[in-house]
């Protein structure tokens, strides 16, 4: 049976009258990697901060391991590892002091894992946090987030602004947490190919709402990308059933559409066209269709 680690129910939150989260529901199941995607300002970080008890739910409920992170921060945070987007770390500490400081909060701290990662990353433990490069900061933050082998690892834009080497270190930590310990991971990213490769479940947020959420392979198979030829030219994208986004011009159009291919094909034929080729859409195509500019047009239409 799939065990629920995170259960967010119809969570809403606004800041100074601006809606940041609008009836968001989100579940994370044990042993799975959950990818969170969406444009800047879509609400990803706000959602993650609620899981950590850093923000209190205005309406709706947040449960992590069945606990309320605001009412029971120790019960939740001792079992969670978190790497924030800004990588806030105490600047005045040395790297080894940061490790001892973090260890103090976590009885399950694994010193040999900490040492192994310090060595792999070639991090100098005597260096001050404020002297670290951007990549080294991320590595130090990562060790602090994973060395207690948390049941739930939350990474907010872990790859943001990092070179390929450090991005790989991050992916390595995710893979190890899941493969070796059966842990649960939630990570947000704007790198859609990374999310597509690394996630078992994907949730797309758009303007404070969950636009879609599900098992990645199911999400992908629910959307198709088809190439369509028409007998006549179209100056404007032709209206087609289930179409979410269209690119092209004249007689040839590429269309991202949802639902059954039969229904779509029927609609194309009715307009004097034929479907030349169809395949499951990529996450990026779905993302752009649901949250991009053309998606907004399609919603408005």
């Amino acid at each position, binding site marked *: 049976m799939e065990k629920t680690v995170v259960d967010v129910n119809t969570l809403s939150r606004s800041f100074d009258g601006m809606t940041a989260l609008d009836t968001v529901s989100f579940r994370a199941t044990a*042993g*799975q*990697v959950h990818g969170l995607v969406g444009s800047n300002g879509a609400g990803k970080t706000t959602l993650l901060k609620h899981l950590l008890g850093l923000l209190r739910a205005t309406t709706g409920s947040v449960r992590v391991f069945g606990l309320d992170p605001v009412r029971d921060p120790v019960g939740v945070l001792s079992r969670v590892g978190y790497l924030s987007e800004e990588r806030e770390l105490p600047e005045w500490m040395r790297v080894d002091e940061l490790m001892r400081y973090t260890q103090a909060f976590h009885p399950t701290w694994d010193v040999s894992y900490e040492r192994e990662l310090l060595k792999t990353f070639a991090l100098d433990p005597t260096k001050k946090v404020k002297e670290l490069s951007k990549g080294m900061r991320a590595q130090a933050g990562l060790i602090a987030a994973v060395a207690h082998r948390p049941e739930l690892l939350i990474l907010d834009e872990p790859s943001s602004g990092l070179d390929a080497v450090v991005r*790989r270190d991050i*992916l*390595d930590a*995710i*893979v*190890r947490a*899941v*493969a*070796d310990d059966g842990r649960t991971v939630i990570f947000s990213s704007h790198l859609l*190919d*990374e999310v*597509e*490769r*690394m*996630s*078992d479940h994907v949730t797309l947020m758009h303007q404070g709402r969950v636009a879609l959420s599900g098992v990645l*392979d199911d999400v*992908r*198979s629910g959307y198709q*990308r088809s*190439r369509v030829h028409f007998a006549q030219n179209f100056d404007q994208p032709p209206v087609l059933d289930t179409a979410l986004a269209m690119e092209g011009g004249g007689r040839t159009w590429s269309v991202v559409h949802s639902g059954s291919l039969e229904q779509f094909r029927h609609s194309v034929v009715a307009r004097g066209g034929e479907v*030349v*080729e169809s*395949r*499951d*859409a*990529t*996450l990026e195509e779905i993302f752009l269709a649901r949250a991009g500019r053309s998606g907004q047009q399609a919603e408005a239409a």
Partner: protein
Amino acid sequence: MDITINLADGVPIYRQIVNQVKYLVASGLIQPGEELPPIRTLALQLKVTPNTIVKAYGELEVSCVIHKRRGSGTFVSEGRPQQVTLRERRRVIEQRIDGLLAEAHQLNFSTEDILRMVRERKTAMDETVAEPTEREKR
């Protein structure tokens, strides 16, 4: 293990892995009894979630291409990868061919061009197998 993931071709990642392992076994590039990389190793190499490898290996085990030995690892099974039905094998290949033809059409290659290029690639691959690369020699 030489596997490449193509996110653009619309085939689920676990299925791409299943297809390519089947191909590697059927073509003799990996031999019966040979050990497959552990889940963590392959997940890291391909930069995919470990559960995708678990799913792919699970499906390969069900179709008797590989088997797990308790406490040791995952190995290529002895015998016939042809246990995969002809229909299934055709379906896998036809999917790829359809994509190839559509792409070729888009890029202005004729079907004859494509057939010739497939043969050329095959010849080039055979030569690579005959002469191991620098990396494999080490």
